[in-house]
């Protein structure tokens, strides 16, 4: 492992900026239905936070908090919940992925799907970053 | 839906599995071959009787492709070919056992299995109810006979196998194209005595289809430009050359040609479209060309191969003329030539196993060493040339009368010329065998030949026997030591008995043809087609 010095400038700015990026990511994610944004863009922004932490505090340290199993589990969770929402429409007897099937206005099921996509994208991108980072040291 | 035709095809096919299963236990394996041969003979005999009684048993295995069924139907023509193949299979099995054991060949299990598979495919060709079923069995016949051609696995055999596959599958492709055209033009592929009708509507398409079909079947009938695979395939063991390359494979080509002329196009359509002349000319050219080339051959089997090419052209000519008597002559020539040619091949095989003789000019004095075998050789050779009292004369007579009735004098002359060519081919062999002294046999025939050859020296009389030949005569010599040196004790019974049986068959077919079911079946077939 390369000796990793934590230059105070980098660590402090990351520690200050991270929460704002995270909220902005969630904001983009949740406003997908009405305005610019959506699951994919929001997820990528959220993933960028993890990458920032890796730059600031070292890859292996960040990876310790986000082990491979958890990342893949999150990805699977997102995918399965998306499938669950889409399948639920079928259970109710409406065509697959029909967001108007639940009596409530379609915005809510779509929000759930956006979050699911966001989780999946965030975890996949983070996992990809850690995979490539680890491959470099190997 | 009667099971008889199915039984005829399934009996040899089932034998294939049994032979493969018992391939390491020779006696059980041979027992299965004989059982299958007898069963097939019985089934075909019964089939012939039923067909002669007027019935046409049929078996349909469901629509296979483009609403054309995969089906078998026994009509006189098919029953005759099946009966012929079955009888000769039995005789050849006996001979094969003798040949294989005498020559202790490698991988005999594969040999007998492929043999049974080839017979099953031939039965399929004989009893096919439509052109497509015939094509399917025709291709399977190629696949089944390939292992036999490359049996000895030498480079020469491999090359022969490659030519064999390329030619026969190339023919298969032409045949497929032809039958597709026929299907598109006539809407059906099933055989109808006297022709399917509706083919003359579009003459260009019909002629193209006929050309393709003749090319497809011509490959296996070894018509001139497409015949080179047959002499090359002589590298196969002799029983294979005997039954397959004189009877099953090449006859299925000729049989297919007959089916096209009599049951697809019908004699009138062939005449109207003016297709009779080109086919007959092609056959005549093949007869004469092959007859001439046969004279130049040094090895016995290659000479016989070219003589087969020429004899098959007789049949092609008979069908080409599309005249009642000529077609009858052609149909008769199928069994006639089969019996005669197979006995010649058997004798050639016997000479190879017993005395290591493979070349024409090694045949001096063989008459004394193998009197019975050479007598059979002489008789059947005479028959091939058209001598009376042997099968060849009968069919040739009808062919001649037929070509005269079709006022094709040229073709009649070609037939006679071909007969003369056969004479020129066989007479030197017979004279060498009987009338020229055997320099080796100064002392008691068997031991002397054995000892001198054993020490590998090249005594003056023995000219350039091929290396395989000399190592064989060592073995023949070795056996000579054990066997008592009686002169007439010339060869293993398993080889001699089939030779005699087949020669007798040729003679019976020559003397009293009309008593045999083959003759009646041929008459029935012609009556059905020409009305």
């Amino acid at each position, binding site marked *: 492992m390369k000796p990793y010095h934590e230059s105070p400038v980098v660590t402090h700015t990351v520690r200050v900026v991270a929460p704002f990026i995270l909220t902005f990511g969630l904001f983009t994610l949740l406003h997908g239905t009405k305005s610019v944004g959506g699951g994919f863009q929001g997820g990528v922004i959220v993933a960028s936070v993890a990458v920032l932490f890796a730059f600031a505090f070292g890859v292996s340290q960040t990876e310790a908090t986000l082990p*491979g*199993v958890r990342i*893949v*589990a999150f*990805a*699977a969770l997102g*995918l*399965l919940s998306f*499938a669950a929402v*889409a*399948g639920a*429409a*079928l259970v109710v007897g*409406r*065509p*697959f*992925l*029909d*967001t*108007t*099937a639940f009596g409530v206005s379609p915005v809510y099921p779509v929000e759930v799907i956006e979050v699911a996509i966001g989780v999946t994208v965030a975890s996949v991108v983070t996992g990809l970053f850690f995979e490539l980072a680890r491959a470099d040291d190997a | 839906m009667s099971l008889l035709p199915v039984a005829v095809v399934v009996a040899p096919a089932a034998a294939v599995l049994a032979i493969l299963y018992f391939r390491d236990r020779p006696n059980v394996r041979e027992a299965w071959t004989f059982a299958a041969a007898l069963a097939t003979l019985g089934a075909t005999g019964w089939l012939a009787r039923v067909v002669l009684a007027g019935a046409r048993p049929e078996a349909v295995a*469901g*629509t*296979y*492709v*483009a*609403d054309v069924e*995969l089906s078998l139907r026994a009509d006189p023509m098919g029953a005759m070919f099946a009966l012929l193949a079955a009888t000769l299979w039995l005789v050849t099995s006996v001979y094969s056992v003798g040949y294989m054991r005498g020559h202790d060949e490698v991988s005999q299990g594969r040999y007998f299995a492929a043999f049974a598979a080839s017979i099953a495919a031939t039965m399929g060709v004989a009893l096919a109810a439509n052109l497509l079923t015939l*094509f*399917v069995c025709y*291709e*399977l016949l190629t*696949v089944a006979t390939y*292992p036999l051609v*490359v049996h000895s*696995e030498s480079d020469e*055999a*491999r090359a022969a*196998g*490659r030519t064999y*596959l*390329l030619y026969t*599958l*190339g023919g*298969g*492709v032409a045949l*497929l*194209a032809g039958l*597709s*055209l026929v*299907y*598109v033009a006539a809407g059906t592929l099933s055989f109808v005595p006297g022709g399917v009708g509706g083919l003359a509507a579009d003459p260009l398409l019909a002629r193209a289809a006929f050309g393709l079909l003749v090319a497809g079947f011509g490959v296996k009938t070894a018509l001139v430009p497409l015949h080179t695979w047959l002499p090359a395939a002589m590298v196969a063991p002799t029983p294979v050359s005997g039954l397959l390359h004189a009877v099953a494979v090449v006859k299925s080509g000729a049989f297919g040609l007959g089916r096209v002329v009599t049951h697809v196009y019908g004699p009138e359509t062939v005449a109207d479209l003016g297709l009779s002349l080109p086919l007959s000319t092609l056959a005549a050219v093949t007869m004469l060309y092959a007859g001439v080339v046969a004279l130049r051959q040094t090895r016995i089997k290659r000479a016989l191969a070219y003589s087969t090419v020429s004899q098959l052209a007789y049949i092609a000519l008979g069908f080409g003329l599309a005249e009642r008597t000529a077609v009858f002559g052609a149909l008769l020539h199928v069994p006639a030539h089969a019996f005669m040619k197979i006995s010649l091949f058997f004798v050639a095989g016997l000479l190879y196993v017993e005395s290591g003789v493979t070349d024409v000019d090694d045949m001096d004095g063989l008459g004394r060493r193998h009197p019975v075998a050479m007598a059979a050789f002489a008789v059947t050779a005479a028959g091939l040339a058209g001598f009376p009292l042997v099968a060849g004369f009968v069919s040739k007579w009808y062919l001649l009368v037929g070509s005269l009735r079709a006022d094709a004098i040229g073709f009649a002359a070609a037939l006679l010329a071909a007969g003369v060519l056969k004479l020129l081919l066989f007479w030197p062999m017979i004279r060498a065998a009987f009338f020229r002294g055997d320099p080796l046999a100064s002392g008691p025939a068997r031991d002397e030949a054995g000892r001198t050859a054993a020490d590998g020296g090249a005594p003056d009389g023995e000219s350039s026997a091929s290396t395989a030949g000399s190592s064989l005569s060592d073995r023949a010599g070795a056996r000579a030591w054990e066997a008592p040196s009686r002169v007439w004790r010339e060869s293993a019974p398993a080889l001699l008995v089939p030779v005699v049986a087949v020669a007798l068959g040729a003679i019976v077919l020559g003397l009293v043809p009309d008593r045999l079911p083959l003759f009646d079946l041929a008459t029935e077939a012609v009556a059905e087609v020409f009305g």
Partner: protein
Amino acid sequence: MIDPALLVAVPLAGSALPAVASRLRPRTGWPLALGVLLVQSVLAVWVAAAALAGDPVRTQVAGIPAPFGIGLLVDALSAPFVVLIALAALAVLAYTRRGGPRSGAFYSLYLLLIGGLTGVCVTTDVFNLYVFLEISGLASYGMVAQADRGAAALAALKYLLVGTVGASLYLFGVGYAYVATGTLDMAALRAALPAASDPLALAALGLMVLGLSVKVALFPLHTWKPDAYEAAPPGVAALLAALASTVAAYALGRLLLAVFPGVAEAVVDAALLGLAAASIVAGSLLAYRSESVARLLAYSSLAQFGIVVVGFVVATPTAIAGSVVHLIGHAVMKAGSFLVVGLLARTHDVRTVAEYAGLARRSPYVSAGFAVLALGLIGIPPTVGFAGKFYIALGAIEAGSWTAAALVLASTLFGLVYLGRVLERMYVGEGDTHAGPTGAASPGMYAAVAVAVLATLALGGVGPLVEGWLAPVLDGLDAGLAMGVVP
């Protein structure tokens, strides 16, 4: 009735399970994949049975009405392929239990591929087809790279680059189609295209056909296939050889028959016939000259897909039935052949044609299986290889296009040349016959090969069946019905 969307959703959702499960408890990837694929097979057969019985199963995803939403349709043309994908996946799965890669991620990719391919078969929206093409593409790039040899990574990259160019060209064609007609639904496209301005429609058709030709690997655009199939693990090569190009060829057929009839027929037909002819000849020639058997089989796919494209270009009902039969038959035979190559590489460590010498004595049963598959690929009756080719040749003759018919028939001889060489070497070559088997092979691997061999023989007579199934759809298409289906 089942919603065909499930056919796509089940494998895609299922693909999440093996990756996670295998990290929690090792070796649970395979059973999960088996479970998902069994469910998929039951669904596929159920939907196909309904579709082939005459009333196609159709739905609009998310309930959005036709011209706007994405429609899914399982009719007589797509039902056989949906079933083929599910069953081929099961057969190859049996092989990969011992034979192929076993990591959880691999089985996730496996299910992703099946989901993507089924999606291509059932969708009626041309852009949705692009997305599914890319999903199955991505999964197959990942699977090719699973082999531990370095060459697999380069082959996967080459496959990725060429495959993505192909899919993007197809997307470019979709763009032109959209600009020309304003819709993406196949039925609406078919109605609007003839009225659209010629250059746009021709550009759309040309680019989409070009893109799919890359995926089908017709001759000049085939360079990715030999490297990918040779470097990939045998199980993956078998699955891709059976399904990847087959589904792309189906999509090409669907476009030519249901979306673009009447649009610049002559130009595109001539071009496609040229591509097909080049594929048949060059594929056979390249196969003849290749040393490794896997590469030989990959090149042979070029020729076989050339024949299928000829069938679709001739477009008479018999020829189309022939193409469908040949696609299915070829998938079965080619998958079986690759499995045999993998099996022999594993048990006797033989890979090139030279090393196959005398193999028939060392492993008689597997060699016999390979012989049947090879005869099928050549096109010897009673195998399914012959049925497909015969129908296409017959259709070509009915349509009077003699060159096409001659080409298809001649391909039998080409097949004999390059496959006969291998068979002759196996049966008549004198290899070191006493070299016993070096590796072990699981019963699952033998079973997969046996299934392929039996299917090659059993499907021989499937011709009339497929012709019967397709008749209503093709008549409907001729009568101008949308997707040949009575609404």
